[in-house]
């Protein structure tokens, strides 16, 4: 059982280190302008009433 616990701790620790490491590295290298983009398309909502009618 001790071996299983050690394997569990090892896998989880490695996973967390990789995850946190990647996030920190990625955040540092990401340009602020590339974080999120919003695209807006406005149209007249009256036309959507028959949207699902064939």
């Amino acid at each position, binding site marked *: *059982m001790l071996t*299983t*616990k050690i*394997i*569990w701790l090892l*896998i*989880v620790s490695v*996973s*967390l280190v*990789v*995850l946190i490491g*990647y*996030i920190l590295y*990625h955040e540092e290298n990401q340009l602020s302008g590339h974080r*999120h*983009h*919003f*695209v807006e*398309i*406005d*149209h*007249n909502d009256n*036309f*959507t009433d028959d*949207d*699902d009618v*064939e």
Partner: protein
Amino acid sequence: MTTTWSDRQCDKNDICRFFTRYASYMLGCGATCQRIGINLQRMAKVADSTVDLIILPSHIMITLVDNQTGQACHHSETIAKVPISYEINTLLSKLSWKIAEGDISFPSAVDMLERVVTTARSLNPWGVMFMVVLANAAFCRLFGGDIHAMAIVAGATLVGYGFKNILLSCHIDVKVVFLLCSFISAIIGSAGYIFHVTPTPEVALGTSVLYLIPGIPYINSITDMMTNHYLCACSRFMNALLLTGCIAIGLTAAFLVMNIKIF
């Protein structure tokens, strides 16, 4: 001002290519075949044309027929490999309405399509991750897990979903991603068995991989089947089945590594 695409300035081949690209992205981001067909017919009216759609497992083919001259043009394209996104789906549907209302010229529509498919990301990934973690923990509770089991599932989902995002952004094959994420989540989800912190470890382990289940492809395959798009329905169903198989392999590997004998 109302714009039509039926004048000679708009080449039917270009319009056909635009429709194919549009349909390719609609299909890739999780729209049903019926929805794509409706949207294309709506836009085709502006070009005074009718459109026919053939959807194959990896490709899409479109035939555009001019209502006045009867001239037909064809175009085919590989289905876009993009993550399922209802945001892009919605924006593309709005774009089709914008075109149908005559508010947008053909070059602007092409630009708008490119903008939508390359830059549209409205949801904060951290917010999505938080909601996925909450939802999966709630699943654990629904299946009878206690608060400790829910905490284990939340942790397993957080790490697994984080890995899923990272691996997918690195363009690793989606089947490999599902297998790895299922394995990691199941390993963390087995904490109940390893450290005896919950009386319901089997619920924690079972629900730790539920966030990976490809629900939208399964639902879309049924919807496509109901609307007589059998080929696309089978294709989507097989894809979803393969992903579910990868989840099962990852889960089984975690059972073996953690020496868990449930069955």
